[in-house]
Each structure stands twice: as structure tokens, then as C-alpha cells.
């Protein structure tokens, strides 16, 4: 399946882009997406415990992904 990875703030700068397409096997989880992304040069700085939102909702690492999901990597937030 394919999911769309989104990067923001420091993660976006490390990625050099605000979005990437990821190819994952069936049954892949949020944890698998994090592992895949961390193999990309620069993105090894993203922690394994990175917070991820799937389709705009915060999702724990065991969350199963589906084809077409939007998987956002969320650095520690600092709004307000």
C-alpha cells in the first residue's frame, strides 16, 4: 500500500520536503512507517517514539495503516 507522509517544522527542514509517498507492506503499522522514514538521510533524527497523526488524528504506534492514509509526523508542538 501507499501512504502519504507529511512533515512539519523541524522535521520538514530535515526531510527537505513537506511530503513523501511511502510504500509499505499489507498490515503495516504507524511504527513501520516511522522505521521506514527514519532510514531516509536526515530523518534518522526523528525519534523512534515520534508522534504521528493518521488522517488528522493522533494515532499510537500500533495503529494499522490503510492504503491512501495521510501519515503526519508531528514534532513537539509549540503553538499559542
Amino acid at each position, binding site marked *: 500500500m501507499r501512504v502519504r507522509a507529511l512533515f512539519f517544522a523541524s522535521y520538514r527542514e530535515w526531510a527537505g520536503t513537506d511530503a513523501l509517498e511511502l510504500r509499505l507492506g499489507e498490515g503495516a503499522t504507524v511504527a513501520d512507517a516511522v522505521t521506514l522514514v527514519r532510514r531516509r538521510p536526515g530523518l534518522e533524527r526523528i525519534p523512534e517514539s515520534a508522534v504521528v497523526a493518521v488522517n488528522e488524528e*493522533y494515532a499510537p504506534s500500533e495503529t494499522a495503516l490503510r492504503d491512501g492514509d495521510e501519515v503526519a509526523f508531528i514534532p513537539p*508542538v509549540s*503553538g*499559542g
Partner: protein
Amino acid sequence: MTYVAIVDRPIDPAALVRRVGGEGDGAVVLFLGTVRSRNEGRTVTAIEYEAYRSMAERVLCEIALDACRSYIVSDVAIEHRVGRLAVGDVSVAIAVAAPHRDDAYRASRVVIDRLKREAPIWKKEEYAEGEATWLSGVTPAATGTSAGTSATAQGTDGPGD
């Protein structure tokens, strides 16, 4: 009434206040977050705010609706600005109207505390020496649905404001 928006233009606090309140309301509390010239001992010249806009509006909406469920509140209106802000600019405005002031104060406080912990919004401070850095920030709790659905936490006051 619930209104939330991520905006890339200056926030008009008076316009936000006009969005809330009706005949049954005796209290309006408006909170404004503004860009400070100093943070953690450094001189700040500007702040660049970035948001995951669609999700940020979703999270703010949820926070506003939770506040209406936890307190007797008529209206909640929230605007958060993104882009480059100067010292003194308003980065966030929250207007709450309620029949009684106790609910208005409490709801306002919970909304800003949760916004700071949960909304996917980031700021990069630019300093007088020319450097710029993303603030360290708060790691949102990755619960099953969205982070922290309870409106009970009063939060501690971070360095942000």
C-alpha cells in the same frame, strides 16, 4: 456557537469578541497570546508560526466542543495565526461567552492550555543575533482518537507565554 480558524492575517480581537455572546450571557473572557521580545534570556525579533492547518482546526474544534460540554458556555471562538509575526503581534485569540463568569474563565483557561499541548502548531524564534530555532515544545499524547479528550487538566505555564 463554535468557530475555529487558522489564519494568515492579523487577528482582530474585537471581531472575535463580536462573534460570541447572546442575551443569556453575562460574561465574556478573551485571551490573547502575543509575541514577547524575550524568551529564555534571548532577544526575540520575530516568530514564524507553522501549522498542520486542517488537523489544527480539527483539534481546536474538538477542544472548543469539549469546553462546551464541561462547562456552561454558550460560544467559543478561536483564531490562531500562522506566518511571520513581529514582537507584540497577537498569535492566538480565544473568546468565550457564558451565562456566568466562573465558567467563562475556566473554559478559556482549559482551551489555551489544551491548545498549547495538543494543536499541531509550531514556532520558530528568530533572535537578535540572526539565529533562528524551532522551540522545543510539548509532545502530544498519542491516544486512540485525539490527544487528551478530557477538559480537566489545568496545565502548567510553559515558557511560551
